[in-house]
């Protein structure tokens, strides 16, 4: 199997898998969604909250803030040597204290160490009017998407077969109908010949096939080449998250092999 990044940004990736099967890529997709651990706020102690929002809503909003995750420094609380009491190996503490009038942002969460500082500092949590106060302490711990969606590191993940567009230029009469109907503008007429501009953009909708009266165009998906797209919420980078998923999947296959 060969993996190439077609597009790679900090929080977004488009990956091409070659010599593979849909079943295997789906296993990777499911691992990415439900098994990659990340950090999220789990316990919130509220000392003072005179804002317009209930304590629960504020705690819920805090839980969904993506926190930077250094997986080599943390372990799951259930597996930690502190027996689930909470220690520096499995817990990260944050404090927040603000008085109005102002908007409380995710950047106002003060971590115990600068490396845990929230990267996305502009998420509004609550608006405070004059004399309203918010003072709280939050504990973050590792979890997986299986437990709760706030621990899901990726979002908007999906894959498709690699599009293969076959054009029979003898049958084609350059009527331009397929070019117009294509929602992704994949086709073009160049030098009096129907041509494919960008195959990877094709979504296999087959509108061009339907509109062609002469059967000159055929769209197929190559099952052995798959394009996967995903975004991360910012707690892990797009590359890290895929590496981690492959590691976890590898471990699972090893376990299965041992038990057989």
């Amino acid at each position, binding site marked *: 199997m060969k993996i190439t990044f077609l597009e790679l940004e900090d929080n*977004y990736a488009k990956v091409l898998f070659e010599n593979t099967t849909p079943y295997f890529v789906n296993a990777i997709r499911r691992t990415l969604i439900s098994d990659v651990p990340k950090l999220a706020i789990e316990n919130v102690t509220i000392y003072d909250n005179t804002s317009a*929002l209930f304590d629960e809503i504020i705690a819920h*909003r805090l839980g*969904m*803030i*993506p926190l930077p995750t250094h997986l080599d420094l943390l372990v799951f609380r259930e597996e930690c040597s502190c027996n689930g009491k909470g220690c520096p190996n499995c817990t990260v503490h944050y404090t927040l204290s603000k008085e109005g009038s102002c908007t409380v942002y*995710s950047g106002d969460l003060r971590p115990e160490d600068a490396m845990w500082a929230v990267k*996305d*500092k*502009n*998420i*509004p949590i*609550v*608006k405070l009017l004059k004399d309203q106060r918010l003072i709280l302490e939050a504990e973050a711990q590792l979890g997986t998407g299986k437990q709760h*969606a706030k621990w*899901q590191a990726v*979002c*908007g993940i999906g894959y498709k077969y690699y599009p293969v567009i076959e054009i029979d230029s003898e049958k084609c009469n350059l009527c331009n109908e397929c070019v117009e109907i294509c929602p992704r503008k994949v086709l073009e007429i160049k030098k009096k010949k129907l041509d494919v501009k960008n195959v990877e953009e094709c979504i296999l909708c087959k509108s061009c096939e339907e509109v062609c009266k002469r059967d000159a165009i055929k769209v197929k998906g190559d099952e052995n080449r798959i394009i996967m797209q995903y*975004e991360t*919420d*910012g707690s892990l980078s797009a590359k890290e998250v895929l590496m981690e998923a492959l590691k976890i999947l590898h471990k699972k296959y090893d376990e299965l092999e041992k038990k057989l």
Partner: protein
Amino acid sequence: MIIPVRCFTCGKVLGSLFEEYKKRVYIEGENPKKVLDDLKIRRYCCRRTIISHPVFVKGKEVKEPIDEAAQYE
């Protein structure tokens, strides 16, 4: 009302993007489509969450972007 931290459907973080969207669309009068594309909000679930969020400028609800917002600013 305050903007949801994440998209209801897919979980993308939108809270931090909305203030820029609000400023550019409702106060500076840019085309919403262009701003959404610039902010890399790709899926229609996230786009509807941003577009349909009610906007208040100086305490008054603004239903139509651009011109109406300008008179409260």
